[in-house]
């Protein structure tokens, strides 16, 4: 099993989810479950994600889609360089609001 740790903090209007480890075709279901259980205003801290494959990208896009549909958003806090590289290669980087830290990401809602 790929190593992946996920924590969720429910703030007043936003769910803050912090992910660390490797998001791949083996572990993405954990990320997907966490996102499915989150509200429509989500900040996802990806500072400690050292690896993400398209399986993880798919989870992000799927949640972004649901959030937008419900009038919310999925925003990224401190995405690691690996995450940004994969999102850029997939042509998706401009779809996600990205922030330097959790405070500004949460405050942006």
């Amino acid at each position, binding site marked *: 099993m790929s190593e992946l740790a996920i924590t969720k903090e429910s703030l007043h209007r936003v769910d803050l989810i912090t992910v660390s480890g490797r998001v791949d075709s*083996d572990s993405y279901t954990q990320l997907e479950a966490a996102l499915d259980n989150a509200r429509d205003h989500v900040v996802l801290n990806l500072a400690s994600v050292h690896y993400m494959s398209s399986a993880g990208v798919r989870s992000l*896009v799927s949640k*972004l*889609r649901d959030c937008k549909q419900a009038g919310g958003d999925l925003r990224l806090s401190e995405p690691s360089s690996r995450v940004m590289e994969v999102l850029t290669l997939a*042509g998706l980087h401009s*779809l996600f609001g990205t922030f330097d830290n959790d405070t500004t990401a949460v405050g942006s809602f």
Partner: protein
Amino acid sequence: MVVRKLLGKLWNRLVKRHELTVPGHYAQVQRVCQFVADGARRAGFGEDELFRIELCCDEAATNIIEHAYGGEGIGSITVSYQDKGDRFEIVLRDNGRSFDPTTVPAPPDLTTLPPDPQALPVGGFGLHLIKQLMDDVQFTFDARKGNRLRMVKQKP
């Protein structure tokens, strides 16, 4: 069968090809990636390129399970790599349905969110990554030998 396997191993040693076969489970994909990344590191690739090579092997192996076999536990995946001097060659083979990843179109331009969020595609990114990160990608299908995906990365 045994003789063919032995000859295959001997040939691999002669051409310095390293090979690994794993069951087609998602939990095995990281093993495939690690196997190739170890070889690529010995071939002289740096950390950034190793990440990209690992990512391509991940996407290719995942596609085999998802599309060629249509699920986990159906068949095996054989991965091999070869340091060919100026380039590093990776081959993935399986015995699933013929699935040519090189014919899958790139995802649409997603620089802006489509007016209807539901129009956002949630798949097809993996192949797009492979095509962008590898210098050459070729797919062949043989009724007896199955699918063969060859990915080439020029060495630094």
